[in-house]
């Protein structure tokens, strides 16, 4: 028991490492936020383009989506950071991580938004317009309320996955939370910072996990 407290919940080490962990946490937050926005935008754009049903472009989008859903994200991080420089594209660590997370996240978001778009029958829009609703009215009172039911639960769950994936940036030595924790672990020869990092992730993501559960139950069989 004493060994457990000394090694896993060492207050002294915790105190010494808190600044490093705080720095790391800020990077993790920022990385999550920026990548999430890019991934959602790119996913939305792809879903939108796909809804025009141009056969050639759609084949390209399907290949993109399938490819990046099949490829482990850690390989994507390594390709962007270690392989692109040979090709003349040398991105700093932070932007390599953003690019990798965006490419990967957008593939999932495209599928989610597409399902949302396809859920609403074309006829509903036409009917709403024919009844004299303006375009914004049609969008906000007819289309979006229905699309959100389909999109919101998987989009939240996918955002959670994306935030969890930001840890992989530690593999390319970006000083985010996990990397800082590992460095503090090496420096103090005590694994308390690792446990602390795990607890920080838990505190930060648990509400999101619960939220996903609530949304999934609320919009079940929509």
């Amino acid at each position, binding site marked *: 028991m004493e060994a457990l407290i000394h090694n896993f919940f060492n207050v002294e080490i915790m105190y010494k490492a808190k600044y490093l962990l705080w720095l790391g946490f800020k990077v993790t937050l920022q990385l999550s936020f920026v990548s999430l926005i890019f991934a959602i935008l790119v996913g939305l754009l792809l879903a939108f383009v796909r809804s025009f049903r141009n056969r050639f472009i759609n084949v390209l989008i399907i290949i993109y989506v399938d490819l990046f859903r099949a490829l482990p994200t850690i390989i994507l991080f390594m390709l962007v950071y270690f392989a692109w420089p040979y090709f003349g594209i040398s991105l700093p660590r932070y932007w390599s991580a953003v690019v990798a997370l965006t490419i990967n996240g957008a593939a999932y978001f495209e599928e989610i938004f597409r399902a949302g778009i396809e859920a609403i029958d074309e006829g509903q829009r036409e009917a709403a317009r024919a009844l004299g609703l303006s375009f914004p009215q049609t969008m906000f009172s007819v289309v979006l309320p229905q699309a959100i039911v389909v999109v919101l639960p998987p989009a939240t769950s996918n955002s959670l996955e994306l935030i969890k994936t930001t840890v992989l940036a530690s593999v390319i030595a970006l000083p985010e939370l996990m990397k800082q924790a590992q460095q503090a*672990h090496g420096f103090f020869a005590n694994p308390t910072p690792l446990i602390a990092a795990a607890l920080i992730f838990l505190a930060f993501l648990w509400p999101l996990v619960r939220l996903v559960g609530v949304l999934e139950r609320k919009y079940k069989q929509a």
Partner: protein
Amino acid sequence: MNFQDLFYYFFNIRVFIDTLPDLLQGLVVTIEIAALSLILGFVLGLILAVIRVAVKRPRNLLIIRLLNIPIALYVDVLRSIPPLVILIVVYYALPYIGMLIPRFWSAVLTFVVILSAFSEEIFRAGIEAIDRGQIEAARSLGLSYIKTMSYVVIPQAFRIALPPMTSRMIAITKDVSLASVIGVADVLKKARAAQAFLANPTPLFSAALLFTILFLPLVRLSMYLEKKLAE
């Protein structure tokens, strides 16, 4: 940048052929970890789901119903913490309290517990989707609770659980490549070593290619199952 460079660095046939045997060896390790994690993870998840459903029955004593809490906690914790963090804690932190687990088994343990948490949710949703009337009917026909579960409820729940199971299966197998971080000699570790040794990133592309060949059919299958069950 011209095409010659592109082929030299990214799709170098010589490097590809030279490093392929090594990568395939790594692939075997990846598949071993994935297979063990999937089998043990799903079995553990199913057991947890059945326990949780059984424990929550209203006629149980309060003390038994409270058993629900530790399982719910286990599931939530493992779903909140990123897999890489769990892996690093298992491999680097547990030895300090006397639990020295070899790399390979650290990876298997990590993915088994994570998958069990996710599949507990999947199976429980499947079990709870079965109409109560069926359970009551089976019980009144004289089947014991265990028999009702194993002959009536679980086979049907399994069908409902199939699409989320396949997509979770893909997610976990993709996560297996994280094992390279703690030094397991999987595809990615071999590819990184070869890339550093030859100063040529072709092995990384070969690894990506191997993964894609492995997963594309699975991604398609899961989409097909989802569509089929939605009908």
